[in-house]
């Protein structure tokens, strides 16, 4: 175990990073109170005076929540399948992270070809007679959520998979041998023990989704703007830094309000899970 000087040296990068992060956050908060001729709440008042901005904040949180829930619903069984698959686990893991090898912009353009009114999915649906006219799958929140699930799913799968890899397989077998049915074994043993992974995945997906820029821009419609896109616009197009900082602070606060309970739950479940496995 490193001691004395070597310990400090080892900690140096982490301390440096933490200092920079703290400084950045402090600067962000300070800029959000900058009125141009002093300190005040003008940017915050301006934000809440715009109903479209408030709706955008809510929309961002709802889209992030919907994306997170869908990622759990798809990610959990996928992670379970991969954890149980001994022979081709590496191949499946590669398939999971494959989307990360392509830029987010290119992936989003791919969705345009698939989801558009003249895209592959709508053409197939019309061809099969499932619908007479194209279903709007793009330039609305449906398109945004589909794009975001595609981007975020690997985070969720990997987080849950890590929980499955730590799960003692004998516990489920023990439950079954004590008379539990497969569903009971899943609900009473496997699910609670893998919930810390689910919570970690939720934190990762929710936080990364609240700040997205490209996907809502390319797959959303005129009224589907999200906070990340707006912050980008204020920063790099309008150059209104206090406004951008205010939006970033509000978004961060909303993130904290969601993530802190999730983290608390995760810690509680982890303790529970360790106790149960012991």
């Amino acid at each position, binding site marked *: 175990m490193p001691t004395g000087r070597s310990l400090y040296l080892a900690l140096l990068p982490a301390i440096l990073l933490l200092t920079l992060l703290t400084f950045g956050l402090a600067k962000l908060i300070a800029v959000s109170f900058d009125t141009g001729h002093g300190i005040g709440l003008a940017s915050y008042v301006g934000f809440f005076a715009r109903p479209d901005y408030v709706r955008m904040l809510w929309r961002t949180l709802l889209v992030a929540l919907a994306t997170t829930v869908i990622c759990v619903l798809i990610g959990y069984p996928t992670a379970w399948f991969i954890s149980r698959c001994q022979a081709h686990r590496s191949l499946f893991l590669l398939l999971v992270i494959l989307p990360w090898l392509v830029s987010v912009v290119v992936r989003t353009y791919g969705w345009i070809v698939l989801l558009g009114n003249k895209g592959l999915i709508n053409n197939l649906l019309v061809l099969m007679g499932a619908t007479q006219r194209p279903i709007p799958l*793009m330039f609305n929140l449906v398109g945004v959520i589909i794009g975001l699930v595609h981007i975020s799913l690997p985070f969720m799968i990997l987080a849950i998979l890590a929980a499955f890899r730590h799960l003692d397989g004998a516990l489920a077998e023990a439950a079954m041998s004590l008379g539990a049915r497969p569903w009971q074994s899943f609900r009473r043993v496997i699910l609670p023990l893998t919930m810390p992974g689910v919570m970690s995945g939720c934190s990762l997906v929710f936080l990364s989704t609240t700040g997205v820029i490209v996907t809502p821009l390319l797959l959303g419609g005129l009224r589907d703007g999200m906070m990340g896109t707006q912050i980008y616009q204020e*920063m790099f197009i309008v150059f209104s830094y206090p406004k951008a900082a205010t939006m970033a602070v509000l978004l961060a606060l909303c993130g904290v309000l969601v993530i802190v309970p999730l983290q608390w739950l995760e810690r509680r479940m982890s303790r529970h899970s360790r106790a149960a496995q012991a």
Partner: protein
Amino acid sequence: MGKATSLRGAMGVLAALAFTALATVSAAAQDAAKGEITMGSWGGGTSAAWRSIIKPFTDRTGIPVRVVEWPDPQPVIRAQAGNPQYNAGVMNYVDAYRLAKAGMLQTFRPEQVPGISHIPPEYLLKDKDGAIIGVPVYFQYYGIAYNVNEAKASDFESWDSLADPKWKGKLGIARSKDSATYDLTLYAHIHGGSDTNIEPGIPLLRGLAANSIAVTAAMAQMNTLLSRGEVAAVPYYSARFWGPQALPNASIVLPREGGLMLPYLVAVPKGSKHPAASLAWLNYVLEAQPQLTILHGSGYIPFNADAKPDGEDLGRLGMPVADLLKRLYEPDWGTVADHQEERINLVEQISAQVK
């Protein structure tokens, strides 16, 4: 004897090497004195067109030029304020005006850029002290682009067609920055407003927003949507419809009210290195031949009055430049730039109210 010969030979070789080294150092010093140009440009066809005019300049002056693609000039130049990495850059008049107002662009007197005399004075962008903010090089126009399978030119004889409810859910609209800068300005002008009074343009923008399904977030994205027919029509840029790189399945129409002129200039970030080289470059890009070369490669129309497109290029333009200019409205870009932020906020609220 043999020893003396080989000694003389070695000394000769050393002398030759020293001479070569000296000559190289001297040439490098001369090149350094001449400077070099790193030029910022939008990517794709635009940067390729700029690269196509470098060789004659370097052959003439010995100054090497490198064209580097930037996504948007304003954030790049603002981020590098005080330590600019570019010696020149092409940008639109609103970006140039705002950067100059923030003190981030070098301004010039007419005698520093004698070639400016070839540019009609009404197209010069000046700051409040009358100094020249960069040199105007070319323009394109803002018309209505349409997918040829989804619409025809006669559908858009007037800009007001964009508000026709028959296009509900079929049109594209520019992002709020460009709607505020281009659409509102043009629509106000068409409906009797002015650069300071854009109120008369709001109903048409509101109608377009109500009909729009997609926002032009990026050129590549709208190019894709337009070519695939995902949007039937969108207010768009004429240079996208030029020569071999023209968008497939799409065309552009200039409605009877005319279009908006979108002018571009080459400016120099304040404090950039090699100011003499930058000036030489500015004077070169003002010449007729480089501007004609850029037109041929990219569809940006020359500002130099002596640059007369002919043959294939004139055919693609469809009319002489003088006739085209008569159909384009050029606002006071300074006024437009001064109101840009408040108008972006207005457009955002119009968009949010769309049912």
